[in-house]
């Protein structure tokens, strides 16, 4: 399945054309956020991340579905 993943702040992907905060990934249907993080080589403790799918906070085991909008947000507590 195709997913759009938004990588906030520190998690941006460094590319030759500059840091990217939006990436498209291909994953087997039903994959968890933890598996998505492995694919993206993000080794930050999920405890220090906010995992948000379609605007809702979820746990690392949350099963993803086609078309989900995923945000991986390094801990931030306000502005």
């Amino acid at each position, binding site marked *: 399945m195709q997913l759009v993943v*938004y990588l*906030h*702040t*520190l998690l*941006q992907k460094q590319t030759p054309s*500059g*840091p990217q*905060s939006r990436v498209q990934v291909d994953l087997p249907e039903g994959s968890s956020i933890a598996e998505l993080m492995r694919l993206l080589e993000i080794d*930050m*403790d999920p405890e*220090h991340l*906010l995992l*948000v799918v379609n*605007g*809702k*906070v979820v746990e690392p085991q949350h099963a993803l579905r086609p078309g989900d909008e995923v*945000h991986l*947000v*390094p*801990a*931030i*507590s*306000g*502005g």
Partner: protein
Amino acid sequence: MEVWRINLRAQTLQKETPPEAWQRIGGRGLLARILLDEVPPLCDPYGPHNKLIFAPGLLVGHMLSSLDRISIGAKSPLTGGVKEANAGGSTGLHLVNLGIHSLILEDRPDSDAWWVLHLSKEGARFDPASDVVGLGVYDSAKKLLERYGKDVAIALIGPAGEMRLTGAGIMNLDKDRVPARIAARGGLGALMGSRRLKAIVIDDRGGEKAPIADPAAFRAAQKEYNKALQAHPQTKVYTDFGTIAVGRLCQTFGALPVRNFSAGQLMDLEPVSAEHMRNLLLERDGEANPSHACMRGCTIRSSNVFAGPDGKATVSPLEYETVGLMGMNLGITDLDVIARLNAKTNDLGLDTIDTGAALGVAMEAGLAAFGDGEGAMRLLQEIEKGTPLGRILGMGAAITGKVLGVERVPVVKNQAISAYDPRSIKGTGVTYATSPQGADHTAGLTIRAKIDHLSPKGQKEVSRIAQINMAGYDTLGACIFAGFGFSTAPHLIRDLLNARYGWQVGEDILQVLGRETLKLEVEFNRRAGFTAADNRLPEWMTREALPPTNAVFDVPEEDLDTIFDW
């Protein structure tokens, strides 16, 4: 440490030993205690019985990272209730270096002359302020630094405070002598203006560092605290990106303040994203700096210096709340335009949250179009000129809405809601509604809670925890972001306090201080005549669905009325 009690009518200083009940509390909690002990809750905020009080937090004075904040308070001219507004910079540190436990400014002068209050080892003295009155904050600070030397701390007001506009705050110098650390909320600048006090200059030469009961234990706790702060991944987010980093999370939750709180998401966040701002500041170089410390000793450096394309500083700092209220809320997404509006608002000595909210209401009333940066600047210039329209806007969103006949006014207790729409982050809505301070995200933001922010359930509980913790941090003199270090090692608050004062407090001291502070504040407001009706979000937020979540604020009223029953 002494209480410095200054009578503004007689221009006298009396130094006192703090009574026992004031000795184990500081900052925000101490303000509430002094207000309850000395200020009649039903008094006229501008009358002679109100007092303007400066209270450094319990851990201020040691250059611990992010722990030198000053709390300033009074009965609020804006809310009519208890008020504490805090700021970074150097005011707190200098007061403590002079041995000042709290500074209480009483009564008001008889004459129309303006004054600078000068505090030093020699005591207090009143100097004429005729050469700075009427000047903006930046020019005033420059002149005062020329007159008193570059090493003093200064708390001052701008033209808005002089005009007694309830959007006015009290500005403080940061460590680089920039006067933009504002104790913003609740109209404290207007109160200072009503006292004909343009500035307070604090010269700590010859002062001494605050005493430490057990220096070795203090050093050990400080070392551990610094380590915990640096190890926390959140610290790097704030160092690199600053507070604006929370914008994308708000976009994700549909909780941005867009066009006078009529939508929760932008079509395109990128022009106001943290990532864009960082890249811009790195590219522009010159005076631009994405990682700036407002206080000496701060290792988080969440502040910034925003520079224009020529590399010259436009404003420092440019924070998320300002980008929210003076940008997105006005339909403006050009950071350079927002920075210029921010600089003008600072120069007037106004709170960017309440002023941004007032401009949003004015745009809804048709005084300028959403997205019109020049129109927004023209409205700020009305305030600068002191025209009737300008004075209305400078009073904040609540008055502006009443005068212009707008229903969609984002305020609680007359104080503007900050840059998190409470319909999409309902726990923060509970905080806005119930905080004795009025709508204020710093009183207990819940965005970090792992909870369904759209459900009405469980919001009372997350708000209560956040409000208690924040009241505790405000009592220590801690920046919100010092909390990362303490969150992984809460025993360090106990250890630092016990080493500093020779106390024997337990690990729950943060919550003990927080609960005590809230209890005092709630009691002051009760005596000031506040009821359940004051602890509500504006009614339209319970009816008007917020796109795209289509949420309304639906946390049960019973939850709001019982939040402080613990």
